[in-house]
Every structure is written in C-alpha cells, then in structure tokens.
C-alpha cells in the first residue's frame, strides 16, 4: 500500500528513548498491533546506566498506565508505596519541625497515592516491553526533519532518511527538534540547583515522604525500597541556591555530610550516602505550542518543571497516554494521524495540565522561599486551612496522584 521508493517509511518515528518516548511506543504498539511500524531513535544505550540516584514519585493515574503496558508487575518489587506525605516549614536550626500539612492514606482501597520508582529499572522495563511489542529501536539520533506534503522525512545520524506521517519529539528539556521547528518556550531559571542522592538510614521510613521547606529551598526525603526489600533507603532532592549547591557538592565530603545530616534530621537514625550525589540545575520551561507541522512534543520537550512535586515523569506519562489515544482514534479509522486537527486535539488535552502543574509547583516554591517570620505565619495559616478543609485537601492529593477526572490518565 505504500510508495515503492528507495527511502524507508515507518508509521511513526519517535526521537528520544526516555520514559515518555518508550511509554508512547509501547502503548501504541500494544494497541494498534505489530502492523503499526514504530521507529524509536535513541543514541544513548538504553537501560545500560546503573542506578544514577534519580527516582520518581509515580502517581496513581500514571501507575495504572504503566500497569496497562504490562510492566508494573516487573517494577513492583522495586517500587516503594508512598503512604503518607508530611510537609514542614522550619528554620534550619530548629530541632523540632512541626508538620504543617499531612497527606495520609490511599486514593482507593489498597492503592497508595504514589510509588517511588528508581530511574534505571523503570527505563529497563519500558525498553524491554517496547522491544517485545515489536518497536524497532535504533541507536541513532534524528538530525533534521523538515515537513513535506503529507509526510515527515527524518534525516538520521546513521545516514538514513526515514519517512513517517508524524515525528514525535521526546528528546528532552533541551529538545533540538523543538528548537528547529521554531517552537519557542517561556520560562526561567530558578537560580537554584537540586542535589539528588540516595541515602541509607538506620530506621525504616514506613513509606512516609517528607518535604522540609528550608530557607535555601525545599528538601525532600522520598522513601525508596532498599535492595534487601526493607524501608531503609531514601532518595533526597535537596534544592539550594546554585552557588551554595555547587560549593557543597564539590567541597569537603565531611562538610557535605554534616550539612546533609543537619537537613535530613535525626528521625531515621544514622545515615550514609549511597553512591555519589549529583547536581541538577532547576529551571522551568514551557513550550508555547505542543505541535508544529507533522511534529509533536512529548514529555520534557513539552515542558520542564520544578521537581518539587515530582510531577515531571507523571506529566510525561500522561502526555504519552493522551497522544496514544489521539493517534489511535485517528489511525483505527485510517485517518491521517499526523494531520493538524489530531495534533490540535492532543494539545488541547495536554497544555492546560502542564501549565497548571508548572504554575502550582512554581507557586509553592516561591511561597516557601519567602524569608521572615511574617511569611511563615502566612504559610502556617494557608496550610493549616488546607488541612482543615477536606475537599480542598482531597483536590490537592488528587492532583498529586494524577487522578483528577477529565485530565488524568483514565485507563
């Protein structure tokens, strides 16, 4: 049925083998069947990276999406249920940090509102599911793609040109395809960096996540499952002013551990670093459009948000679920799923969610970043109010769990 030319054709090309691209490929291959030929281009070796310290809070909605891809059972042994979240707001030296807001419990019986999943097993599970589903994974990158009538030819680094009706840019926060398509972003750097590390501690965390809003920035303790299955590992996301963070991480290791211990608190007993801490600059970037002609943005390419609420991966998985629906709805009728009306439908479904989450995390960060006792009083009143108003609290928990009706992942 297709043109007999020397150039290769596929039904879809995905640039980028991160969680978003792999989830989209796996979902579409599973739904449309192996007859739908997907080429996924990722120059870096998939799943080869050992534990790099990063972990994600996978909310309940996106977790169901991963389950629908058949990979949750594989991830479950590495996933730590997050059954409670406490937020405190204290001066650094305070010995006792009163809990201002506690999210407790489950969104449905037996279903916690989030699970902590380490990066490497997540990517490995997605990559193997994609391969099993028949997705062709090529160790190359898309160098250039200029749309033509009815088709998008992608020039690859390995010398080939491959055509498809649609090219998905899932090539990360600094997406080159987004830039080449002339899609601009608005956003700003926070002047903060996040130190990400894995910590082993004496006592079990009991599935409880903690966010300390410290004057230098939020310090999050997120419960991980240790290799022995116990609750004695946590992931920390430690935000500081950029210069402070750089000084801490490149300075004296003893000083670093002292600073860490002071922020971590003594609640979980003695602590040890697992592996080397890593530094990530914090920035917010929102693409002004989510599509161009025969090109669509997915995951971090669509927006990079403050990692405060752990929503980057959740938004990426929701992108993948929404684009899967839009492409399948058109493809199953033989319609051109790379056409502008289909991409517009995806954009309508995803743009508000991403912008709202970016504004919420940004707002929280700024609110908690305000110095002085007056600001703290405002925060205490604000969060105390949230705690006393069950519907609003449920809304916040629902937002964190990614299950808001109409905008969440519904399968």
């Amino acid at each position, binding site marked *: *049925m297709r043109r007999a030319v020397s150039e290769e054709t596929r039904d879809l090309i995905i640039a980028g083998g991160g969680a978003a691209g792999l989830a989209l490929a796996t979902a579409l291959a599973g739904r449309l069947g192996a007859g*739908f030929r997907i080429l996924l281009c990722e120059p870096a070796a998939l799943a080869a990276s050992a534990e790099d310290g990063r972990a994600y809070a996978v909310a309940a909605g996106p977790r169901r999406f991963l389950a629908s891809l058949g990979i949750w059972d594989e991830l479950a042994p590495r996933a730590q249920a997050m059954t409670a979240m406490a937020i405190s707001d204290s001066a650094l030296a305070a010995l006792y940090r009163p809990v201002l807001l506690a999210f407790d419990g489950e969104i449905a019986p037996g279903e916690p509102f989030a699970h902590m999943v380490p990066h490497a097993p997540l990517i490995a599970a997605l990559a193997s599911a994609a391969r099993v589903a028949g997705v062709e994974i090529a160790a190359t990158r898309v160098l250039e793609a200029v749309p033509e009538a009815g088709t998008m030819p992608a020039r690859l680094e390995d010398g080939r040109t491959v055509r498809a009706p649609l090219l998905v840019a899932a090539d990360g926060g600094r997406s080159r395809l987004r830039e080449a398509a002339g899609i601009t972003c608005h956003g700003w750097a926070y002047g903060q960096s996040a130190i990400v590390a894995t910590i082993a501690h004496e006592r079990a965390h009991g599935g409880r996540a903690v966010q300390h809003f410290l004057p230098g920035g939020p310090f999050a303790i997120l419960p991980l499952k240790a290799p022995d299955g116990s609750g004695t590992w946590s992931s920390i996301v430690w935000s500081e002013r950029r210069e402070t963070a750089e000084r801490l991480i490149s300075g004296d290791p003893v000083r670093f551990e002292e600073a860490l211990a002071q922020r971590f608190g003594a609640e979980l007993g003695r602590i040890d670093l697992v592996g080397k801490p890593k530094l990530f600059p914090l920035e917010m970037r929102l693409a002004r459009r989510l599509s161009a002609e025969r090109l669509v943005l997915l995951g971090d390419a669509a927006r990079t948000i403050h990692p405060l609420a752990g929503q980057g991966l959740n938004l990426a998985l929701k992108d993948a679920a929404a684009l899967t629906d839009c492409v399948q709805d058109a493809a199953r009728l*033989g319609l051109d799923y790379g056409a502008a009306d289909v991409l517009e439908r995806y954009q309508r479904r995803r743009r508000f969610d991403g912008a709202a989450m970016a504004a919420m995390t940004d707002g929280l960060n700024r609110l908690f970043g305000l110095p002085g006792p007056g600001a703290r009083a405002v925060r205490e009143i604000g969060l105390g109010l949230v705690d006393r108003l069950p519907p609003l609290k449920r809304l916040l928990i629902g937002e964190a769990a990614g299950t808001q009706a109409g905008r969440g992942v519904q399968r």
Partner: protein
Amino acid sequence: MSPAPSDTSPAAASIDRGEVKKFADLAQRWWDPDGPMRPLHRINPVRLAYLRERIDAHFGTDAGSFRPLDGRTVLDIGCGAGLICEPLARLGGTITGIDPAAENIAVAKLHAEQSGLAIDYRATTVEEVASGGERFDLVLALEVVEHVADVPGFVASAAACLRPGGLTVFSTINRSLRAFTLAIVGAEYVLRWLPVGTHDWEKFVRPDELTRAMRAAGLAQDDRRGLVFNPLANRWSLSGDTAVNYFLSATKPGA
C-alpha cells in the same frame, strides 16, 4: 478486463449525465477540508467509524487494530477524489475506486500519490466492473444512490461485484420532508454548505425502497443506522434516526 468507458457505453445506463458534470466541476477543490466539500470532510470520520464497526463485526477483526483490511479487496463506487479510499488503503485494504467522472479520478490519483498510497482508480461505472467479472470482499456505495437514475439496476450491479460472504455498505439521503428541509433548503440554500443544485429531492431514496432493491439483488441486510447532525454541538454522530441521512449494511450469502 472491462473495456474503456465512453460516453456512448450502453452499460452506463444508471448514470445521469448532468449529475456527473456537476461533481466534476467540484473535483479540484475536493480535498480542501474548508472548501466546497467541507460537509463531506465533516462527516468523513463518522462514516469511517460506521464502516470500521461493520468491518470488525463482519470480518471479526479487533476494533483497536491498525490494519483490519489486510488481505481484503475493496470496491468504492462513486469514490470521488478518494476521501474514503485513502483511509481504507491505510487500513490495509487493496482498494479499487471507481467514478464515472474522469476529472475526479485524475484528482484522486494525484492525491493518492502525494499520500504515498497505491490505489487502483478507474474512470468507469459499476456496470462495467460487474460485467468484467471482478469480485470484492467489501463493496461501498456512499452518498451515491441519490445521484443515480435507476436505483434497482445500480444495486444489482453493486451486488454482482460482491464476493459471496462479502460485506456491502450503502449510504444515502431519505426522501422525507425533514431531508428536504435539511439537505436542500438548509444545506444548499440557507447554510450554503453545498452548491445549490447538488441534490435533487426526487432522487432521494427511502430506506425501505433501498432495502427492497438490496433484497431483490440477493443481499441480506444486517444493519440500518442513521447519521444525524446536532447543530448545538456542531457535530455529526451515528443514531437510530434514519429520517435524513442513513446507512444500510448487508452481506451476500454463501461461501
């Protein structure tokens, strides 16, 4: 194969000359979704959804799959510029699109090439194809019956092109007062969706008349469905209401 069609071909008895000219005039702008064929572009996803439903029901294919027509042959009668042929080709079918207007076929060929799709387009009539002995798994006559001069003759020729065990789907406009009001007064004169003169109310066909013609042609009807426009939501949808636009689906017993 069938001889080349010509204006004097006696086999083209069901074609009304004036009607052919009318659509040929429109052919150039067929593929513009905001052009004069905008109404067809608007109902196309709903028409395809109905076809998909009948295809899955008849051939037992999975409703979510990408290529349910793999290995199947399809004849689209009155294919115009290929608005149905191209999607069905993407669904894996081996498609033959026929239209008596050579200009439509020229536009359809050009567009299929741009889309990278191989479709066998022919400027011919269903009578020619039927007499040539070709048989198809799926035969479509969408928005055609209301433009032919001899409905029973046309249906018999379409049925003759269907392989025993195959599926056929017709769609057309009912000869009801509501159809007159909506399709002619509304769509042509008031909303200007269609050029005035696109439809001739005398040629509209009632579902029972079409059912009778299908039965006489040896077809077993298995579904009847309406296509309705909701002006508030500004969208078309499938419905049990066949008072204006409707589909009839039938199979050919045997094999």
